């Protein structure tokens, strides 16, 4: 084989502020034209590795390096020098647009190379053509959909024709359907340009949807495995470090079917299923008792009732919501799904009173909420924003959670009791005297949930509670919400996450273009490609597995899967 284009030799890196190295003794060779997936839980060192590749480490974020890193046979000299060889597509596309129009943004790299305008325009057209972004070169990147933004940011890197492309969690901000398209797009780019591709991602199944040469698994700063997708999907290593195995692999092992790497389990399309395997799956589905449904209570005793709700943005005159009707019973855990801009967040804002409805009414326990102020509504319905850093405003945990009570003039001894009780519920009692800055992202999320809970609301609305979380933290947060739900808190989740819908919410409200398109049990949506498409979700691999095994009603397999839920 030819020379490696990237080579780590006994590479160790330690951040200045850290006591221990974040990357330990890395040995890794990546060859020209390879397509590599680097996976691992949060804090495993995979993002640090990506910063080493594009030069942000050590040039912008210094630390101690041992061993050697060679890129194209040379030691990295600067961020700029590396940017000629490695193009980086960063995770959050919103945070990196600098151009006023998509075309200008794509050209940014060339502008900085002081390329003459004529040549620049031609290169921009080529790059935009490669990713299919020609139609919106003149549009502002901020106004594009999630998938379009991703295309523009990819074109902005491709424009310089770097031989290595580094994708840092490319799927994190995308809904499942768009994520699937993005995976396909990366694959196409590689076929057209022959570039070496490195994808850093923890959503394993979504990346493996297209061919990958090697999967490098990280945990605790070390490489723990370097193998093919076929080997890794059936190994026990994924579960051990908290990475989600593909759903179809989990379903198969629940049904007692265990495949080996030679059956090509890396992709469902290539997986070799024998007739015996299929029969096992069918038997498993047939023998699973189906849990009874409990959607009768909802209409009789609604906790929250939305009637003919409508809203138009005053600034733009755009209709955000139109004639929305549904109700929520006490103790439900329901998901609100739909593409970006479908009206999901607007609905939440109307319920908690941040925006005023244009038409229709919202009832809480049968009484209209019209005339209730935002703080009054907060005592009935708690709202947790997506980004905890946007909510937390006190340096100490106790003060942070006590804030809502203090401004309400509640006596200090009672505040102490209530804050302590909430901290216990949220599993934060150990941290009562801690500064917020010492907490992890997931713990901060819990603090913001505690902020809302301390006012003792009946309903909790959470905006993308698991966004950007790896499987372990995702499970933590969701199990916590389930425990709250069991205590009687009604939970409304605004989300893109298919697994969340499937595993935790029984019911989904699907929004599209300002309308409530569908109100249905989640297992039905996720086992029906057409319904899933409407929700900008996609059918899970369980649907395809059911088809392969000759099960006509995919829903039964999905339900069998959920009822046999053990953490894998």
């Amino acid at each position, binding site marked *: 084989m030819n020379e490696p284009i990237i080579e780590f030799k006994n590479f160790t890196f330690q951040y200045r502020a850290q006591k221990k190295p974040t990357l330990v003794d890395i040995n890794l060779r990546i060859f020209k034209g390879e397509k590599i997936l680097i996976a691992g839980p949060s804090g495993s060192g995979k993002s640090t590795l990506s910063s080493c590749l*594009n030069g*942000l480490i050590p040039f*912008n974020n210094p630390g101690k390096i041992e061993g050697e890193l060679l890129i194209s046979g040379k030691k990295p000299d600067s*961020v*700029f020098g590396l*940017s000629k060889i490695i193009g*980086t597509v*960063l995770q*959050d596309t919103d*945070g*990196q647009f*600098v*151009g*006023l*129009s998509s*075309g*200008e943004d794509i*050209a*940014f*790299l*060339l*502008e*900085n*190379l*002081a*390329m*003459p*305008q004529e040549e*620049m*325009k031609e290169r*921009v057209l080529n790059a935009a053509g490669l990713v299919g972004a020609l139609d919106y070169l003149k549009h502002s990147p901020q106004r594009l959909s999630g998938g379009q933004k991703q295309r523009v940011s990819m074109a*902005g*890197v491709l424009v310089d024709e770097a031989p290595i492309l580094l994708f840092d969690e490319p799927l994190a901000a995308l809904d499942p359907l768009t994520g699937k398209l993005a995976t396909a797009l990366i694959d196409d780019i590689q076929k057209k340009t022959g570039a070496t591709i490195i994808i850093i991602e923890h959503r394993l199944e979504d990346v493996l949807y297209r061919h990958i040469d090697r999967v490098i698994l990280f945990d605790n700063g070390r490489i723990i495995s370097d193998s093919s997708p076929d080997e890794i999907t059936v190994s026990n290593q994924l579960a051990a470090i908290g990475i989600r195995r593909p759903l179809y692999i989990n379903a198969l092992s629940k049904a007692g079917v265990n495949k080996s790497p030679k059956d090509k389990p890396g992709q469902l399309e290539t997986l070799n299923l024998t007739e015996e395997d299929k029969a096992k799956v069918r038997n498993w589905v047939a023998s699973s008792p189906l849990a009874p449904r409990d959607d009768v209570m909802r209409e009789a005793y609604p906790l929250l009732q939305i009637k003919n709700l409508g809203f138009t*943005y005053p*600034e*733009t005159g755009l209709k955000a919501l139109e004639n929305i009707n549904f109700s929520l019973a006490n103790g439900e855990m329901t998901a609100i799904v739909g593409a970006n801009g479908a009206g999901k967040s607007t609905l939440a*804002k109307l319920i908690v*009173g*941040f925006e005023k409805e244009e038409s229709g009414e919202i009832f809480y326990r049968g009484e209209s909420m019209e005339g209730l102020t*935002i*703080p009054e*509504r*907060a005592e009935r319905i*708690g*709202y947790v*924003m997506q*980004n905890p*850093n*946007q*909510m*937390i*405003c*006190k340096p100490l945990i106790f003060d942070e959670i006590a*804030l*809502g009570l203090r*401004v*309400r003039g509640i006596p200090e001894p009672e505040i102490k009791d209530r804050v302590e009780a909430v901290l216990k519920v949220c599993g934060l009692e150990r941290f009562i005297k801690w500064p917020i800055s010492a907490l992890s992202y997931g713990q901060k999320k819990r603090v913001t949930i505690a*902020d*809302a809970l301390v*006012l003792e609301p009946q309903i909790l609305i959470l905006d993308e509670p698991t966004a950007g979380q790896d499987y372990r933290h995702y499970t933590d947060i969701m199990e916590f919400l389930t425990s709250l739900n069991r205590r009687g808190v009604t939970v409304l989740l605004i989300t893109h996450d298919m697994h969340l819908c499937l595993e935790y919410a029984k019911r989904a409200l699907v929004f599209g273009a300002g309308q409530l398109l569908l109100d249905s049990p989640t297992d039905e949506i996720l086992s029906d490609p057409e319904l899933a498409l409407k929700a900008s979700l996609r059918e899970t691999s369980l649907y395809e597995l059911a088809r392969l095994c000759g099960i006509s009603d995919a829903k039964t397999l999905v339900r069998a899967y959920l009822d046999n839920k053990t953490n894998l």
Partner: protein
Amino acid sequence: MVIKMFGYVPRNSPIHRLTGASKLIMTLALSVATMITFDTRFLVFAIIVSLVLFRISKLRLKELKGPLIFILVFLFINNIVIFLFAPEQGVFIYGSRHELFHLSTRYSIIAEQLFYQLNVTLKYFAIVPVALIFFLTTEPSEFASSLNAIRINYKAAYAVSLSLRYIPDVQRAYREISQAQQARGVDISKKAPLRRRLAGVLTILFPLVFSSMDKIEQISNAMELRGFGRLGKRTWYSARRFMKGDYIIIGLSGLAVLISLLTFLVNGGRFYNPF
């Protein structure tokens, strides 16, 4: 959701079609021209020119309501302060004293003083429309390239245009955070006493600063990864070539400065004296 703010107004007008650089030069030239002279005739002429430009730019008055009110209030205060601290400035300048009313031992309404303050006011009315036209008809990215065109370092120019670009983002974040804090019961409305309102605003600024810091680090990394700052110069994708209109406007701006200088000769100084 778009939050309305003071900024670029896209429209198709001859002024919009001018390059940012020539508009910047025009604004600077007219400012200099009206700054240096107190010749009332020239100032009135400059006001007419800037109103004509405003008309050509197809901007609407309500689009500048915010800054206009701010400037008018400022102008009003400015006038009061001049009167309070230098009630006889006009007498000193024009060398005569025509008293109209007597107010107190220190203060009188004097024709010369009124005339002087009228000139100050006229200056505002001559410069403000031109400056507003520049801001409102220049795309933020051209804004940067036009600063760069008059030899301002492109990094500094880009920093200015980026901060203008991110104002709406910061406003949106402020609004979201303030809503979340209101839900917890923090009152920043006019109903609350001043001290509580200030405390409330602090609970919004804390998360706003921290979440903005994250964003700043992110964008500066993203820019550097795409080679920003690598070379001493850069080119501009959206830069436009100078057209006939640009040369005309720069020529006229030069002429305005020249006329303004001529008034010095005619008046024998900065002031035109009718008394």
